[in-house]
C-alpha cells in the first residue's frame, strides 16, 4: 500500500498567528521553503522538520504524518 506524507504546517502556523515569512524567519529559511512544505510540493529533510517542530513548539509527529493512499 502506498503511503504519502501529509502535514499540518499551515494550520499550526495559522493557530500561532504566524505568516509564512514569519515562520521562515524563526526557522532560518526563506518563505519559499515554508510554502513548498505546506503545499506538499517538497518533503523536508529531518533537520528542517526538527527546526519546524522547535519553532512551532510541537513534536514533529504533530506536524507530519503518514496517510495511506
Amino acid at each position: 500500500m502506498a503511503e504519502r506524507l501529509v502535514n499540518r504546517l499551515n494550520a499550526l502556523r495559522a493557530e500561532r498567528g504566524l505568516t509564512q515569512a514569519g515562520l521562515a524567519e524563526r526557522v532560518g529559511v526563506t518563505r519559499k521553503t515554508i510554502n513548498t512544505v505546506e503545499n506538499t510540493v517538497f518533503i523536508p529533510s529531518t533537520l528542517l522538520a526538527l527546526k519546524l517542530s522547535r519553532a512551532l513548539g510541537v513534536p514533529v509527529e504533530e506536524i507530519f504524518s503518514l496517510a495511506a493512499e
Partner: protein
Amino acid sequence: MIKLSDQETAERLNRRRAPMLFVIVIFFLLQQEAYFSQPPTLTRPVDYVRLVGWIALATVLLAILMRGGFWFKSAAVRALMEDEVTRAHRASALATGFVATMIAAICLYVFNLFEPITGRAAIHILLSIGLGFAVLHFAALERRAVKDG
C-alpha cells in the same frame, strides 16, 4: 532607505531569479537560430565574436544553475537562497538536462548516418539542449515554489 532583513532580501531575489532565468535561457536558445542559419566560418572576426559570446552566455547560465547567481550579495543572503528546496530543484533540473542531452546525442548519432555533422555543431547542439532544458526546468520549479500558496 528601508534596510531589508536577509530573509526579505533572499525572498525578493528568489522571486526575481526565475523570470530572469527564463529571459536569459530564451535569449540563449534564440541564438541557435542565428548560429544554424549562418554557421560561423571562422574566416571573419565577427564569427569569433559570436562564438565567444555564445560560450560566455553558456558559462554564465551554467554558473547560475550550479551556484545560484547573485554573487555580489552577502554570504548570508546567498546561503538562504541556497536552501534545501533550491538544491532539490537543481538536482531535478540536472537530471532533466542529462536525459535531454542523452536523447539529443542519440538523435544526432542517427542523423549523422545520413547527414554529416561537424564536431563543433554537435557540441553546440548538445550543450544548448542540455543546458537549456536544465535551466528551463530549474526556473519553472523555482517559479512554482515562490508562488503564494
